[in-house]
């Protein structure tokens, strides 16, 4: 197995590590770097539990090689909260009871944030479409949709206040 030295920044912290060619990004994050907030549900790109941000875009880290992330910025659930205060998306999930077992939640929140960056005011259908690659077996999705709407409203309010970037929206 060929090994590679790579550099990735996770939530703003630089890491240098050596990985096998075949090591997946999700395993590098979880097993090598200890970012276990990112979960694995299927390892086949269908469930979305492993969704992280790669240079700002939501990607499934189970079908990306760690070497492909060399030199990139990775955002995980651990980076959402800023100085102990929740990002709007986290607040939304808590307030709207958008989670039960919480296993899908990190990936779900990162997928939702990606949507909100592209479309700050999505309607219900757009939300459901945007999270179609993220499966949740517990919630029936309704409260997840509500959580994303909550975050959108919250972010719009922050933006209207002119205080710039809302916390943790990476």
């Amino acid at each position, binding site marked *: 197995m060929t090994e590679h030295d790579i550099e990735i920044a996770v939530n703003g912290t630089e890491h240098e590590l050596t990985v096998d060619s075949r090591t997946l990004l999700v395993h590098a994050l979880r097993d090598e770097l200890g970012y276990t907030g990112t979960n*694995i549900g299927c390892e086949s790109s269908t469930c979305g539990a492993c969704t992280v941000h790669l240079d700002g875009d939501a990607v499934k880290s189970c079908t990306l090689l760690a070497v492909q992330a060399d030199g990139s910025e990775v955002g995980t*659930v651990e980076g959402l909260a800023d100085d102990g205060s929740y990002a709007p998306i986290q607040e939304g999930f808590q307030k709207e009871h958008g*989670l039960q077992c*919480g*296993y*899908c939640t990190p990936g779900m929140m990162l997928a939702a944030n990606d949507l909100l960056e592209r479309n700050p005011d999505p309607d219900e259908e757009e939300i459901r479409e945007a*999270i179609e690659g993220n499966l949740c077996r517990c919630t029936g999705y*309704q409260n997840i949709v509500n959580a994303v709407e909550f975050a959108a409203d919250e972010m719009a309010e922050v933006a209207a206040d002119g205080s710039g970037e809302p916390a943790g929206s990476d």
Partner: protein
Amino acid sequence: MGIETITSDELDVESVLGSAVERREDPALITGEAEYTDDIQRPNMAHMAVLRSQYGHARIDGIDTSAAEEMDGVIGVYTADDLDVPGEIPVGWLLDSLRTPVHPLLAGDVARYQGDGIAVVVAEERSIAGDARDAIEVEYERLDAVTDPKEAVEDGAPVVHDDLEDNTAFDWEIGDADETDDAFANAAHTAEVDLTNQRLIPNAMEPRATVAEYKPGTEELEVHLTSQNPHLHRQLMSGVLDVPEHKLHIVAPDVGGGFGSKIHHYPDEALACWCAMETGRPVKWTATRTETYLTDAHGRDHVSHAELAMDEEGTITGMRVKTYAGMGAYLSTFAPAVPTYLYGTLLSGQYDIPAIHCNVVGAFTNGAPVDAYRGAGRPEALYLVERIITLGAREMGMDPAEFRRQNFVPEDDFPHQTPVAVEYDSGNYEPALDKALEAVGYDDLRERQAELREEGRYLGIGLSSYIEACGLAPSELAGQLGAQAGLWESGLVRVHPTGKVTAFCGTSGHGQGHETTYAQIVSDELGIPYDDIEIVEGDTDEIPQGMGTYGSRSAAVGGSALATSSQKVVEKAKKIAAHQLEASEEDIEFSNGEFSVAGAPERSMHIQDVAAQSYLAHDMPEGIEPGLEETSFYDPDNFVFPFGTHIAVVEVDPETGEIEFENYVAVDDVGPQINPKIVEGQVHGGVAQGIGQALYEGAEYDSNGTLVTGSMQDYVVPKAEHIPRMETDSTVTPSPHNPLGVKGVGEAGTIAAPQAVVNAVTDALQPFGIDHIDMPLTNERVWRAVNDAPSAEDGGSEAVADGGERAEDEPSGSDEGGEN
């Protein structure tokens, strides 16, 4: 937009019970701090992989492990011959004359389902373990397979276990056959249907996992496990591994969903433990999604024939049911109870039926073992009941809502004894039905349905008036029925000298929000602020005894254990307070945490101060021990029986078979709600799984026993766009059986939804004379049903124009096109 949550500092001490306080579980889960089993690392940890049979049925003529053993980083490779443990997975529920073939940890001579374990590898890295597993060579001799439960018990079917030639695990019945036959002999009208309740795959998002660590110094085996019931796992694994219970420490850390699939004890868990003891290394095993498809205990798998007898007026006089229940290749932990006591006992539904008889044949097949999956037996029962009731109404030409109302157990007939052994605790079925009818605007909908039909559009309204049995109990009864465990729950409430509380419960949540709801219960009983109360569960060292979380038992049984312990704490604290306030105990009043002397409210003491005094113990009443903590083992008197009515409104496109939801309304009566937001969430999730079964999900084996729905690409776990927005509401009928009056809600949606949807779709397709389509109602199945419909020969739209012509030989059809 549903119920609004409040934060804990907005909680009013007087109404902490019943408030939609935000879950205290969430902060760890939304920040990534939560610790699931696969997150756990141990120094020097090794990894296990399991080689599984690729065939559904095959003789194993040889296993060559040499290539695997030689690989760098491989610590050990083991087959059935290497295991020196008692080596059998036990059955936790024994029926009379149940046949229990040996369920080995690894298949030795014969693999009986695809996924049956054949060998395990322990290696330095997860990836090496996988590589080595793939390097093991197995010589198979393929055998014929059988996967349909009805075919399995027919003459000449392939035999799953050599010594059980008829593939029959049990032949069980309930109810009175003669009385039921009489009812049919005297019936004015009858309805009948053949239906299947298809095999389902639970698909908790977190795959099963185990981290086992053996400490030779103390001879203790510590196991972190994806478990819904660590104590039950301890009990079963103690026998399998021959490790005494007090040396087995089982922890369920954060668990990413279970839905029943994490109740049972699987070979993989015992194997990881055995490997840890054998190698002296901590060992981790985590299932891949493929493994969860192949080996998580599947659910349902019934093939049934149901009949309903009615008199002239449409009053039900009898019901007869014959069911073939697939058990898979081996009997899983609670498997024998599911299609028997959890199924047959609910066949009376919400109805007053004088005579019922049900016969269930449990069949071994070459499929994964079948066991409890969300609802367990009850969804199978209520699907059947609510399908045949709908067909009964159609036979009578009655509106399905009115037919139900006419046959409901009347409000003044509780407790109600059914002919299938159970006594319903409390109920009042009409208000829930009425609320649901009102919410969908039933009368208008029926009018609109008729108008739309004129335009060639097919709206369908499906009712489901379900009942559920939760909080399985009492232990004595469970024992008589064959349970190999009690069904009580333990709760310990410890008030610390600071007045803060830690409460421990033997249940084990995995997404249900116990830490929140239990803290609400304890806060309410003790009058101690919610934020001062912490809940601990899921660890056999923290709380010595327990039974776990399944069958919607946690609030009714676990919550009651905590309420009982809290009440004992208050009793003791009252004695101490009376003594210190120099009053007699009878004169002490207790309210919102404050003990005060009747008539002299200024003489008072808060329970948190009493706690401090109890540990100081300088001034205690005679005979009272220091400290303030109490334990109880709560064993309920009876089950609790939640109920409700769900209504699905759909539009079906007969040209494409597509089904679109117009509305979904759920009115549930789960007794008083501890936290209405959490109740709502449970209903949403349950309904989603029920809709999943109705429209999308189904495990399919081919004739060789190969699972053709073995991945998320082939088995539809519903996505966001598959599940409609739903409206929830409730009525409240407390249970007289427990101190909180609560019932249970975890499975309600899954029990109610499938037939609401199937009834809606078949209602829409009445003009085509379609009375039944087996789940899942995929577009293709619906389209085929329309094309094969008797009236389709003349073209569907003509059938509509003439008011829905019916085929003469339709057993349950009526000329009028049923209720419409």
